[in-house]
């Protein structure tokens, strides 16, 4: 570390959780993101959790407008952004009021003292100044810094207007925290140059504010606050820090390359899925077409139209959008055309909590369409794994000619972690074959083309428009198996319903792996983004002497073939999920086991601590009864 001065006494800690909280206009997401990148480049393992309001700008200084970014950095492998922060930056009274309860007892609190004046205090609901009176800050180590005035002071000779200078105060906070955690300054300066290229005053103001924060740490004798988190011994290779939506977008591009089919995204803006549309729109050089449609229905319709034309048709949305797309998914099931439907889940029902996480659309994915209309479901488990989940969803859709639901959620979408970049040459190609020849002989001896003739996996033949001689019509009306002609025959309909179910069952999905203590009585079954919290929690449960096994599902339909055996004979199956028990319901229905949900529907992910406690309570209660 170049900026650690010789001989200074800097304590090493194995990990730390920091939370940056401020007003929506204070740039907390950007501050947290910068600190994360600097930590990633330093070699820490990390996980992040942006936690922000739905309003773009709620009234300044209000509780509703508090935007926070939590990051855990560590010198070892971690799975979550941590439970309770040990360090919190509060840029205004509202941030203090709304987030202080999260800080661990004895934690360090850094506040922007300048904002603690009557107007802001009133807006936050204080009738006193907690920095001066009351007991709110008792038991915390409070560092009160006049960030706004120090930032203005640092910028005063730069010709920057005071109002603009004030806006750089988040860089003061970043500079101070960067000093406390011995983060290198260079990457941040380089980033400022790049991000604000052409805006010289902003560049100089941000750098001045950052340096002022750094210097403040040194000169205000905060030396005893200074710690270092060493690089984590991660597997060797090239890493990048990636969030779920970016990884997912890249996975879709990878699938397009692996299948040699152009990617077509039909989408309509919706939080928290829009970033996938933004990311893919940047990558036209990969032959990507992004179509922002007039509504969710047109978005999926256009994606299906592109699929029908032989492209990789994808649509992205969140829960409410899925409701609108469900009729088209039914059509895609009937047409047996490939389609990837991506649901970045958020709190519901209705508008619910657009910027907060939840995973309550599993049953909707599974059963939320009219008629008997099964489709495969894939769920991502960490931000970086969204890359592979996207490829898997495309692989199933293209090779089995079916719509596939890919589930992610707000926590994965915006959370980030270091990702050991995979060798792209090692990714398995996706072989897609379209029909080019007649495949059937009519009674009169003439050859013709039947679009619903199937292979051993019950995958139908598909000829795309433009293929000579194979002209045919498909539609949502029930069709005769084989010829594809309209059929109202009762026996045929029964048969088609069976085929549509069976062809999903015949999709090969990898077996689940039991981790932890495979023979333990207690089995935790997870799916989706709970993987990190469950894994961390079970590590702690095991270290306190209890045996517990864990399986995590990335394929929710069809279930892995060995899942039944894994569940069989276990009396204690716990299913943590961010809903009121949807996977546990499916497991109970499918395997007749007593799967018990551990629910959380608070718009926030599970903390490892609360899962640890719930599981410990269960294990201890079980052994006493």
């Amino acid at each position: 570390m170049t900026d650690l001065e010789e001989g200074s006494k800097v304590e090493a800690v194995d990990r730390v959780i920091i939370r940056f909280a401020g007003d929506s206009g204070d740039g907390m997401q950007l501050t947290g993101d910068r600190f994360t990148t600097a930590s990633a480049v330093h070699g820490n393992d990390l996980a992040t959790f942006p936690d922000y309001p739905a309003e773009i700008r709620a009234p300044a200084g209000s509780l509703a407008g508090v935007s926070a970014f939590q990051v855990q950095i560590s010198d070892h492998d971690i799975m979550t952004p941590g439970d309770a922060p040990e360090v919190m930056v509060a840029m205004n009274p509202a941030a203090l009021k709304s987030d202080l309860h999260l800080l661990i007892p004895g934690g360090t609190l850094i506040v922007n003292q300048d904002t603690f004046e009557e107007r802001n205090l009133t807006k936050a609901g204080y009738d006193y100044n907690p920095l001066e009176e009351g007991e709110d800050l008792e038991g915390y180590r409070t560092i009160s810094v006049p960030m706004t005035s120090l930032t203005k002071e640092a910028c005063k000779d730069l010709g920057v207007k005071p109002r603009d200078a004030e806006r750089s105060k988040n860089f003061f906070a970043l500079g101070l925290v960067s000093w406390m955690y011995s983060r290198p300054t260079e990457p941040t300066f380089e980033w400022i140059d790049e991000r604000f290229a052409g805006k010289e005053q902003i560049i100089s103001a941000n750098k001045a504010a950052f340096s002022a924060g750094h210097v403040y740490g040194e000169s205000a004798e905060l030396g005893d606050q200074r710690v270092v988190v060493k690089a984590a011994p991660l597997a060797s290779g090239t890493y990048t820090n990636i969030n779920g939506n970016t990884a997912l977008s890249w996975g879709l591009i990878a699938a397009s390359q692996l299948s040699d089919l152009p990617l077509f995204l039909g989408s309509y803006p919706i939080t928290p899925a829009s970033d996938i549309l933004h990311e893919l729109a940047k990558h036209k050089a990969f032959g990507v077409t992004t179509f922002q449609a007039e509504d969710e229905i047109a978005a999926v319709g256009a994606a299906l139209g592109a699929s029908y034309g032989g492209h990789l048709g994808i649509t992205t949305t969140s829960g409410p959008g899925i409701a609108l797309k469900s009729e088209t998914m039914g059509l895609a099931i009937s047409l047996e055309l490939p389609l990837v439907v991506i649901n970045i889940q958020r709190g519901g029902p209705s508008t619910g909590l657009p910027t907060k996480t939840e995973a309550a659309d599993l049953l909707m994915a599974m059963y939320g369409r009219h008629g008997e209309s099964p489709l495969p479901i894939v769920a991502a488990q960490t931000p970086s794994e969204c890359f592979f989940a996207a490829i898997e969803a495309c692989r199933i859709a293209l090779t089995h000619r079916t719509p596939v639901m890919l589930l992610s959620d707000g926590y994965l979408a915006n959370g980030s972690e270091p990702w050991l970049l995979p060798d792209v040459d090692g990714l398995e190609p996706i072989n897609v074959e379209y029909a080019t020849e007649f495949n059937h002989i009519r009674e009169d001896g003439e050859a013709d083309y039947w679009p619903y003739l199937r292979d051993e996996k019950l995958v139908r033949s598909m000829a795309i428009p433009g293929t000579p001689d194979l002209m045919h019509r498909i539609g949502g009306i029930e069709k005769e198996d084989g010829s594809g002609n309209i059929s109202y025959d009762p026996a045929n309909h029964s048969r088609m319903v069976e085929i549509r179910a069976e062809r999903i069952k015949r999709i090969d999905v990898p077996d689940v792996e039991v981790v932890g203590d495979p023979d333990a009585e207690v089995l935790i079954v997870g799916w989706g983004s709970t993987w990190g919290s469950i894994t961390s929690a079970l590590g702690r449960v095991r270290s306190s002497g209890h045996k517990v096994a864990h399986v995590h599902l990335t394929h929710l339909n069809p279930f892995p073939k060995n899942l039944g055996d894994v569940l069989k004979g276990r009396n204690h199956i716990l299913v943590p999920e961010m809903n009121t028990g949807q996977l546990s319901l499916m497991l109970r229905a499918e395997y007749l086991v007593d799967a018990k949900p551990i629910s959380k529907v608070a718009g926030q992910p599970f903390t490892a601590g609360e899962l640890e406690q719930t599981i410990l309570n269960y294990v201890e209660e079980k052994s006493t009864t």
Partner: protein
Amino acid sequence: MTDVMDSEAVPETSRADWQSDQEVRWCPGCGDYSILTALQLLLPDLGVRREKTVFISGIGCAARFPYYMNTYGMHSIHGRAPAIATGLALARPDLDIWVVGGDGDMLSIGGNHLIHALRRNTNMNILLFNNQIYGLTKGQFSPTSETGKVTKSSPVGLISEPFNPISVALGAEASFVARSHDMDRKHLQEIFTRAHAHPGASFVEVYQNCNVFNDGAFAEITKKDARDDMLINLIHGEPIQFGSERQFGIVQTANGVEIANVSEVGIESLLVHDETRSDPSTAFALSRLAKGPDEPTPVGVFRAAVREEYASAMSDQVMGVTEERGKGELKDLLHSLPTWEV
């Protein structure tokens, strides 16, 4: 494959080549038959390949159309055909795409997709068979039914005002807007030929008789002996005139257009039809001339203006960016954010 094919001459076809082996199942006497026949007879003359032709439809009587065409086709869901066709057209600009639907399909449940498809101007031919009634669901009023109409769902008379499909299309910035009717094959074929040739989204309203649930809705203007006086044929570059003696004409007024006696105003003061005008106001005024199909009604091409076609503009962007940056490499993409070595 497609490039090689295109350099070869388009094989000659006959009407029979464009007919599928499926039995046509419209009610006997339905106006849809004459539209189907008009198109099946026309397609051999358009110089197109069957395998490059796709019919996309929604739901309704008209939407059964694709099943009867020996081309590629998709019978999709109610109202969504323009959206599905847009995706196909963007993915496959080499295809010749026709969208067929009725007034309920396109102006009610699918109204949003229709207006945006027209606004974007993606290359496709949209045929709206307007019979002013819901046929497949057996006789409810539609968004083009006239006020006061008594139907199963409006037994005391329809309260709402109808849409004027030509006005809607013009309001949606459509670059090609035309009207024809099911009683005149030659006119239909002329209009379909023009729509097909137009680069962008073409909108054709076809007055179509539903002889079961709304028989004779257009008879006052489309029956043979009434046409001269009731149909105003719009011909580009010519004064707009009609009547058995061509005794009537259209003149522009401060508030739009109105019908005048040629003998009173003189032929030189008649409005000369200009379908290429970029401002759609005059075309819109023409679309408002008749309140319903019981007054003299303009038919023909209201507007055929040049606007950028969406699919080619989009593929230009893709090619432009690819040219500028080079073809994307997955490995580079994965290394595009800050990276570090462990």
